[in-house]
Structure formats: C-alpha cells, structure tokens
C-alpha cells in the first residue's frame, strides 16, 4: 500500500496551469484524469506524441500487400478466368479492376489494426476494471495524481491547494 495524493479541479484551464506549476517545481505527476481530452495537456506533461498513426500506415500497407497477393494468387496464378475475352493472364492487365478491392482491404487493415493497437496499448478490453480513483473524473472533475517525493502529506496538500485545487484527497493505493 502506498499513499497517493490527488488534487481535484473543476476547470480544464486551471488544471493545465496547475500541471505547469507542479512541473516547474519538479513535482512528480503520476497521472492526470480528465473527463474529456484537454488540449495541451499531453504537451504540458511532456508525453511523447503517440505513434498510432504511423502504426496505422504500416497496417494499411500490409493490407494492400496482402490484397495484392490474394488477388494475384486467386485470379492470375491459381485459376485465371476468361471474362468477356478481356486480357487476364497478368496481374498488370487485371490490376485496374482489382483497385476497389485493394482499396477496401487497405482501409480495413489500417482502421482495424490501429483500433486494436489502441485498445491494447491503453489496456482496454471487455471486463477490464477501471483505475480512476475519483469516479467524478469521468463526468465533470479533473484530478492530478501526485507522488509525495518523500515530503510529508501536509506539504503535498498545501502545494496542490496553492494551484487552485478545489479539494485534495489522500488515498491508499496499491
């Protein structure tokens, strides 16, 4: 069990300036819980930009390549079909009419691959237990979780209140 301190705020602008103040005083912010995306928060916390969009691009390329492999194998290599006497014995001849399918497969893999990665990196799955200690942070409040840096509880609460927290809470957490 470990003691954790929470500063609770009711406005995202106050929260953002609180984060900046705490950061400048070298306090260790463990986590910030917000009910909606707060612009600039990620930057203020010094997080690196997520690489999910790059991942999505790679998933898309994978989908495109697999689609090309599939259409080539099925309609050129394994069982070529003569449709209306149109040339069909090379991939290049048939490529134009494969474009819709290749396009859809690219989007399919890019979208689903990225969403699955998102769920995995955020640890989201059906049945996962939520970890926000203050339930109102999914509705209208904002909370900063602070490590006490070996300072005493009183000092941590004072610094949180000085950043215009409406309330401070100390909870025992694993």
């Amino acid at each position, binding site marked *: 069990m470990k003691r954790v301190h929470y500063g609770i705020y009711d406005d995202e602008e106050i929260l953002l300036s609180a984060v900046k103040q705490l950061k400048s005083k070298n306090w260790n912010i463990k986590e910030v819980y917000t009910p909606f995306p707060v612009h600039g928060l990620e930057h203020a916390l010094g997080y690196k930009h997520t690489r999910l969009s790059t991942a*999505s691009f790679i998933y898309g390329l994978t989908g495109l390549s697999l689609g090309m492999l599939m259409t080539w194998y099925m309609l050129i290599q394994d069982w070529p079909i003569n449709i209306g006497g149109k040339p069909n014995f090379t991939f290049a001849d048939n490529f134009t009419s494969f474009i819709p*399918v290749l396009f859809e497969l690219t989007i399919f893999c890019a*979208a689903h691959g990225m969403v699955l990665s*998102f769920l995995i990196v955020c640890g989201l799955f059906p049945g996962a237990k*939520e970890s926000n200690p203050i339930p109102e942070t*999914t*509705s*209208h409040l904002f909370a900063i979780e602070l490590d006490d840096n070996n300072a005493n509880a009183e000092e941590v609460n004072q610094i949180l209140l000085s950043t215009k927290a409406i309330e401070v809470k100390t909870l025992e957490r694993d």
Partner: protein
Amino acid sequence: MHIQESSYREPLIIGRKDYKQITDDVCKGVEGKPNKYWYIAFTISFLGLLWYIGCVSYTIGRGIGTWGLNRTVDWAWDITNFVWWVGIGHAGTLISAILLLFRQKWRLSINRSAEAMTIFAVICAAMFPIIHMGRPWLFLWVFPLPNQFGSLWVNFNSPLLWDVFAISTYFTVSLVFWYVGLIPDFATIRDRAITPMRKKIYRALSFGWSGKAKDWARFEEVSLVLAGLATPLVLSVHTIVSMDFATSVIPGWHTTIFPPYFVAGAIFSGFAMVLTLLIIMRKVMSLESYITIKHIEYMNIIIIVTGSIVGVAYLTELFISWYSGVEYEQYAFINRATGPYWWAYWSMMTCNVVTPQLFWFRAIRTNLTATFIISIFVNIGMWFERFVIIVTSIHRDYLPANWSMFHPTFVDIGIYVGSIGLFFTCFLLFARFFPVIAQSELKTIVKSSADHHKSNH
C-alpha cells in the same frame, strides 16, 4: 487556452450548461425510465420487425418466387431497398468523419445518433443481397474462401464482389469508429451507476476506460486517423454501389455520371433520415439545448447542396441520353418520364428536386414542422429514385415481346416495411441504453460555443 469564437456565430449549446449538467442531461435517457412515447414507438417498430422476420422466413422457405419478380424485371424492390438503405447509412460517417476533418463543431451533438443510424441502416441494407440470393445459407460463397470446387475463387473483376468488400469494410469500420467514441461515455455511466447490475453492464461496455491523459491523447489520434480513413471509404462505398449499375450494358444504367451522382444522393437521403429522427428525438428526450435550430439549419443547407447536385445529375442524364444519339438510350429516358412509370419518375423529381429548394428560405429551413415534412418527402423521393433507375430501365428491354410491369406482392411490401421496423427497433434500443450525445467530446466545445460562455465576452 480555449479559442473564443466570434460572437456572431450562434451558440451550439443553449442554456447554462456546465460539465455536470451535460453529463446529467445525456445520462438521463439511460438512467431514467422511458416515457410512453418510447413504448408506443417501440411496440409499433417491434411489430414491424416481426412482420419482417415472417416475410423473410417465407421468402427463404418458399424461394424468390414469392416476390413480384418476372423474367424481364428480375431486380426490383430488393435492390431498390438495398441501395436506399446504404444511402441512408452515409450520413453518419459523413457527419462524424468529414465534418471532423473540417473541424465543424456542430457535428458533436448529432454524430453519435447519426453513426448509430448508419450502422442500423447498413444492417438493413446488407440483409437484402443476402435474402435475394435465394439460398442465403450459402452467402459465405461471396467471400474468397477455399472451397471444394477447385478452389473456385470469386471474381475480383465484378462490381458485385467489390460491393461485398465495400459494404463489409464500411460496416465494420463504422462500427469501431462508433464504439471507440462510445467507450468514454460508457465509462461516465459506469461511474455514476447506482445499481450493481448497471455498473456491471457498463463496466463491461466501457472496457475499463479511466480517462488518463495519455489515453485521451491516443483517443484523439485514433479518432482523427479513423476520420481520415473513413472519408475516402464513405465515398468509395456508394461509388461501388453505383458501379453495380454503371458497369452493365443496360440503357439507363451504363452512365459515367453514376458514381458522383449516387454519392450526392446518398448524403442527401442520409441527412434527410437524420433530420427525420433527430427532430423527434430532441423533443422526446428533451435535448433541445444540444440539438438546436442552428444544427437543423446546417443540415438543411447540406440538403439543398446535395439535392441540387442530384437535380443537376437528373438533367445531365436526360441531356446525355439525347446527345448520345443512341435510340435505346433515348427511349429509356423518354419511357421513364412518359411511360407507364411516369408517376414514379415525377414523384422522384418533385420530392428530390423541387421540395428541397424551399430551404432557400430561412423561415422554412429554421422551421421544425416544415423541415420534418420535407425530410419525409426526400426519404420517399430517394426511394423512388432507386426504383426508377432499376425498374424503369429494365421493364422494357430490346424486345417488345418481353415488355412487362412489376407488381410487388405482399412479401415484397412486408420485407420493405418490415426493414423499417428493424431499423427503428434498433434505433429505439440505442436511444434507451446508449448515450445519444457524444458528451465527452461535446464538453470540449463548451467554452468556445456554449451560450453562457459566449455571452460573457
């Protein structure tokens, strides 16, 4: 930090709404008991669904012969309904994806219900190709699966197969787009839940979302990239649906204008259906502060734009058929306007081209009753558009001996009307158990676009 909007821009949230109030208003629909209108609507829709199940079962049991099809008109209401529903399913993704890319804040009050509508409309649509196969238990054959015949593969040159890929990609991508947006809102309901049962259900649905700063950053990135992927996807879907007709050699079908014309028509009919539903929903669920007259007006403007594109496309078709100098092509269009199906053609023209033009008047596009009536007209007109394209193009083919008319049977009518029951049953369940407004995302615009914040400056 927040960007103040011009005070000339009308507010998108009316009344003194703080974050707590928005949560309360949105969760009220889930936490309270539905009123009597919900029960009445649900009973009627559910009876429609039962009728649908009956008629579909009868079709599967007895075969396609139960429909009014004949050897000349071998595609009729099934494909009409399919294209109609797919078109309706276009507004949701358009609102949430394209309007997100253009940073249109007004999308936030309506995107959730429009996306839900997309998903239910695509379910209704997808049922028609499956049941019209005659032997729907073999529907897996439309996918490129190894089989005992060779393997004999599907034909990747066929627009009907492109449709399979387009519709399944569209359905699954729309579904995850919708669900990713729902996760934080389910978490809100979970954290407010009083009964253990509700807590359990919404805990499972919310996937353990906790609202951490890093997760929100990822969430925003995923929403943006999904919007970027869904935008070309939504345009590709109706393009491919139009190619089912455009790549054929039937006069009246093989026109190169079809892809853009179908996409505009799809957005047109989709917005009409969104309006039909939202005008009722905002009233029944008292969401007038969030779905304002301004939202309705914005959608009506899109209806004028897309309705006019559709009107230009109708006239272009007529011109090109005359200009082509092809006798059969010319006859197809003269027959549409003056043949035995003239009433369908002129219903389409009136509903799709004439009535939306009334929205040029501000008094009409900000009037709820007028908007509701015109949106019903557009829904009807767009159904007639597909009926006109499909049935009138094939009912008089090259041999006059083959000329025929299409008469729907009670099964055709039952499946069509019943599919509306299926759609409304799904939508009413959604309105009862799901947060109908994307409240987490809506809260991001409170400071810039809400009434009381704007009037403070």
